């Protein structure tokens, strides 16, 4: 799955239903947070802010009908898997917040690492190794300002941003996989095996240590006469 579609398609799903004229009135800004879990599932949060007129149109079409919004998103995103969907809006500030979850997030690379494709119009702003910040103007939504924050799993290793500035730019990372229970058992077994071997050896040596001592004792000289 290419996660980048979420940012783009959320805009389309929210405002481009059936390519109606309302597609020309996207949210003013879109802030997204994408939290990737170790099992590859992702939690997405979108925060949208509107100007007055687009807000009214958006409310009329989907803002007051979240079930329709969810249905259309599922349809438009049908190539992907969306399990949970939550939605809340703030009429006072003309903002809306959308959260959803997908069990299938990053792509699996042939080298065993994971990959999250980032929209070509997004530029890397900063990163801490685990948290990555991107920003850009979405050309498909009239230059809408978008910020994307991607939080990688806690056990991420070797996260790098590859092919920057190209349509193939992507965040690539590996995971430090903790040892499984069988590995612990294996190590414990090896330890016990070694310990057993040492004990057995010591026991054998101890047994040998007594017997040779008796054998090594000089024989009593025969009594004379």
């Amino acid at each position: 799955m290419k996660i980048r579609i979420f940012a783009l398609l959320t805009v389309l799903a929210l405002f481009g239903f059936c390519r109606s004229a309302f597609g020309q009135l996207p949210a003013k800004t879109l802030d997204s947070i994408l939290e990737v879990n170790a099992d590859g599932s992702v939690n997405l949060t979108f925060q949208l802010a509107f100007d007055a007129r687009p807000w009214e149109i958006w409310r009329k079409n989907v803002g007051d009908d979240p079930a329709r919004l969810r249905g259309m998103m599922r349809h438009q995103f049908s190539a992907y898997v969306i399990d949970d969907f939550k939605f809340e809006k703030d009429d006072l500030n003309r903002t809306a917040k959308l959260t959803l979850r997908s069990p299938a997030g990053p792509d699996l690379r042939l080298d065993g690492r994971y990959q999250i494709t980032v929209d070509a119009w997004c530029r890397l702003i900063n990163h801490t190794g685990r948290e990555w910040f991107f920003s850009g103007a979405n050309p498909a939504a009239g230059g809408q300002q978008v910020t994307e924050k991607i939080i990688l799993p806690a056990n991420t290793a070797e996260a790098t941003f590859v092919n920057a500035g190209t349509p193939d730019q992507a965040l690539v990372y590996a995971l430090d996989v903790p040892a499984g229970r069988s590995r612990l058992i294996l190590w414990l077994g090896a330890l016990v095996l070694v310990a057993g071997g040492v004990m057995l050896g010591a026991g054998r040596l101890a047994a040998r240590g007594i017997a040779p001592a008796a054998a090594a004792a000089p024989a009593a000289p025969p009594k004379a006469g």
Partner: protein
Amino acid sequence: MKNLLTIGGAVGLVAGGVLVIAGLARVGERPAKLTWRDPEIKSALMTLGYKVYGNPKVEFGRHYLSKLVFKNTGEHPVTDFSISYKIDDYVPWTDPEEVHAIPAGFTLVKLYHPRLPASVTKIRNATNATFRIRMQWKEEGRPHEETITRDIVLRGINELVSSDLPDTEARSWFDKENAAAFTVCMVTPNDPAVSLYISEITKLAGGTVAGFGGGSQEVARISRWIYDYMVATQLRYTSDSGVVENVDNVSTIVQTVRMPRDVIVTDQGLCIELSILWSTILEHLGMHSTMVFVPGHVFVIAYSPDQGMPFEQGLPIECTAITHRAVAEPLAQIRGQNSEAPATFEEAVKLGQMGWKQAQDSGLFILVPVKELQAEGYVAPELADIDTDRLTETLAKRLPQAGPAAMPVAAVVNPNLGGGLPAVGPAAPVGPVAGGVNTWRHPQGLVSVSFPGDFISVLPPGAPPFMLLSVGNPATSLSCDVMHITGTQDPAQAMNYVASVFGQMGAMIQITGSTPMPNGTIMINGLTNGAGGSVRWTCLAKPVPGGVLLVSAGSNAAVWPAQSGAIQAILSTVRFQ
């Protein structure tokens, strides 16, 4: 003590051995286990959009045939996973898509976008096919294989489905028309039948359709010619509401929609077919269009490529206005009286504007922007060969009985949509084109041009090698030439070279004017004076790989006014690569 050590050591060895074996055997962990959700397999595909289904980039891949969601529920990786697909009789087993290892707990989504063969476009009626999915993988080294089989339906090439949304999700009219974008697959601007149709329009317009220069006035001018031709040839609107069909849990309208070529041949069409025809013609002529779906109806908005989306500047056209009965009521409103007279173009535009306003007021409309969707991947399927000679004859018979005629050019100068366009006046003769049309194509496909079938080759012996074609009708003095001047990319330089060569042959070329046109083409007007008299001509010059192509059409200067329409008609058929 020594016994205790020996016994403890032995126990330790045994216990350690057991633990090592248990560790190696991964006792206590869930083994690798591949599970999957119920496969999502589309029950029917529209063959007219078979290229859409095969393109995973269209609408972010949502037009898949199957979607499988796998999950490794074990604590060890599933290895050597592969999946391949087959559609009996149409697609052989695909190369397996392989995943070396699916990590523990990982979810994998596999979509199949079938690359159907072009032969599916020959399917006329819904046809059953068997779809198979084969999966192979290993759990803890043990190989597994599973095959899923489903029956699917391949719809006929003319069957357009309005929605693929399950009934459980469909709530509104928008949902019931969510497959409207597939209509664009029926827009076929490169169909030879369409080219012939446009050639006829051009003839009727006296050649003035050629050379779309951009801007709303040009859109109005050319759209008017299209509409007037349709009315003149008695293209009719017919009504059909489609049939409701249920496949699985999808209830949808299945409408038999014919390609533009079929509408041209039969000279009648539904509103959607007429809209598709309009979009096809507009696209062919370099304009853009958006089909507007409203409940129970479709019309079109024409606009110039430099106008962007047509919300404000486009020209809404009620395509069904060609048939009075279809628009009798709103037409009476516009006219303020009942009249059986067919709607004029300006009335068709007013009807379109009314429809567009109603759509905007109600919010119930779906826009299908043709160019955008074509760019996204909604492209037309391959079309069967068509008998162009027969179609040419058919179209020629449809022209008004007075013969092919040109509408007066003056009537469309500065058309003003707001105030209504001037009515179409009586036709001025151009001269019939008898014997059909011949088309010449450059050997490398750099250009093609069509000319009347009664033209004969007039290429003189010893003609310079850059003259690729010289045909004409000695009786009318009409002629057409194609020249390929190599070694330059400058049309002026090429024309100078031609002038110098002709000069050596005793003919003098005089350039009277030149006009830049879109796409780097330059239109040059001139005269050639020689022993045979004075020939007036118009030439289209365009730089091409390796040189400049010059395509000219002309006639004896003395008969130029009578022949200019025919000359323009020839030039309107010029297609540079």
